[in-house]
């Protein structure tokens, strides 16, 4: 949408600025892809092109398994955090104690990863002990393994980490939704769920998907809390951190990183191109409708 007073050049310059920032942010990513083709890996002063690492990366069972676990955790985090973020945002609108509520929801942001993980670790140990005793006392064996270090504990750590971000994003999105629409819907006989799902959700969909993307990103990159709170598995970030500290990151890790970025760039790139083409077409149609004599 361009108004008559803006300049073509200004517009192009601003686009150039945006794209150069994107490019600068992506420079490390491109570099990693470039390096993943190097025989000698990262930080070498010599470069020899090879696709070996890509050939072997999918056979590196440790890396592939760690990627699987990363995905499980990310999916689990999204499945729990987004509904909780939605519920918290709705609660925020109703509650009288807004400041206190926001402080509670946002305070995990201010706690360093190590501390959160350490405190949770001790907390889980005590909880686990309590449940073991409870399970023994009640004779229910399955109770006894609750809160032992494993997937669940790692997931809880991730939820605490990502929930504030999801909460803020969803809250900001909801701010442009007019609550009168829900009232109207309820007045027409819809129950709370229908009013939400059919009236409100379509309008905040974009924000919710942004929140999902956020949570996935945060979960993918998270290493510290997972390292302390997990059971006998590794996520991709854990493997990377361990490699960075001990043996140097393996060339397969860069190939894995390369694959992840190439895939995401292709997906997002095609989405963008498709949308831009579609918007051009839509714009042309709209202009044709508005000024049937001028266009065509």
């Amino acid at each position: 949408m361009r108004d008559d007073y803006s300049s073509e050049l200004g517009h192009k310059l601003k686009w150039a600025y945006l794209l150069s920032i994107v490019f600068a942010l992506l420079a490390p990513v491109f570099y990693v892809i470039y390096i993943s083709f190097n025989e000698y890996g990262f930080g070498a002063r010599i470069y020899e092109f090879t696709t070996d690492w890509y050939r072997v990366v999918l056979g590196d069972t440790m890396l592939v398994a760690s990627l699987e676990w990363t995905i499980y955790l990310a999916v689990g985090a999204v499945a729990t955090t987004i509904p909780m973020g939605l519920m918290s945002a709705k609660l925020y609108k109703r509650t009288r104690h807004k400041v206190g509520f926001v402080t509670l929801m946002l305070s995990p942001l201010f706690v360093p990863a190590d501390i959160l993980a350490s405190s949770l670790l001790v907390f889980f140990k005590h909880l686990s002990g309590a449940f073991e005793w409870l399970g023994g006392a009640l004779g229910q064996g399955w109770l006894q393994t609750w809160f032992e270090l494993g997937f669940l504990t790692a997931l809880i750590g991730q939820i605490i980490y990502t929930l504030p971000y999801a909460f803020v994003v969803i809250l900001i999105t909801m701010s442009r939704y007019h609550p009168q629409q829900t009232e109207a819907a309820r007045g027409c006989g819809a129950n709370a769920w229908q009013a939400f799902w059919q009236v409100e959700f379509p309008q905040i969909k974009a924000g919710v998907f942004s929140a999902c993307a956020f949570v996935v990103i945060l979960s993918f990159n998270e290493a510290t809390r997972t390292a302390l709170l997990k059971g006998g598995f590794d996520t991709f970030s854990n493997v990377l951190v361990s490699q960075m500290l001990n043996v140097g990151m393996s060339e397969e890790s860069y190939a894995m990183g390369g694959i992840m970025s190439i895939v995401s760039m292709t997906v997002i790139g095609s989405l963008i191109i498709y949308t831009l083409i579609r918007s051009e077409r839509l714009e042309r149609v709209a202009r044709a409708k508005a000024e049937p004599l001028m266009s065509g």
Partner: protein
Amino acid sequence: MTVTRRDKSSISPTAGGGRDIPASPSAWQRLIGEDGLQKWAFYAPVAFMILFFAIPMMLTVVWSVFERTQFWMEPGFTLFAYENFFNSARVENYLYSMIHSAWAVVISFALGFPIAVFVRRRVPKVAQHRVILLFILPFMISELVRVFAMRPILGRYGILNTFFMNIGLIDEPITVILFSPLGVIIGDVVSFLPFMVFAGFLAMEAVQLYVFEVCDDLGAGGVRTFRDVIVPLAAPGIFAGSVFIFVNGLGVALVPIILGGPGAVNAGLIVNQAIVALDFPLAMAISTIMIVTLIALLYIGHRLFDLTKILEPIN
């Protein structure tokens, strides 16, 4: 389970009548209200946070006054950990890291927020979210790898220096952009700039396009529009983005380890080092101090700018 349609009136207390209140609701009905049990479902996140966050955090404060043993800690009361923090130069490191993070916020705002405004204003609505997605791309690679990749770019014989020397701009490599506070700030900006773009964009969704036209029509220049109209309207998002970046700059230990000079630290790394040395009371104390500092900053901000106004557009 639910009462009749007529009683399912508006959620908002200010909306008008049509409400049939039963003469004397039973205790159960009072508990579940008009919407039924699902009302209490909304408190689930709060319960979760209290159970898995508030309680462990209170434990953190409690542990910060415990006595340190060789490998763990034992119950007691001593302020030694806090004394230690203030007497041992850690407080200087902590303050420096706050200054560097603040710089990262300012630079990110200057670079990133205009992008959010531009996308909201000039990019076709259909494409807006997709364009913002471009800023998610860097995150698809682990942060660790991205920060490491800054080294060959900023290094003594790295891409930037080689380029500048080749075009004759400089004779000697610039060494101050890596292994220095500037390196840390650059690393923070590159790592966290997208947060500012996202948050700014989300906030700009609240700014209707006609606002720009109105300002143009009234003759306000770009700067005035930006300063007096756009920034206040987008305040929630700017605030959120700033908080994300500031907190991450303080807490993410990776950036000073990889890009910082000798002994460069941020608050997260100081905590990390205390834990590695098995001084848990000290680590908990630093964390408590960090939480208190941030709450204090928020409070000062509130007194100066009345932060509840930020929450207003959301209400």
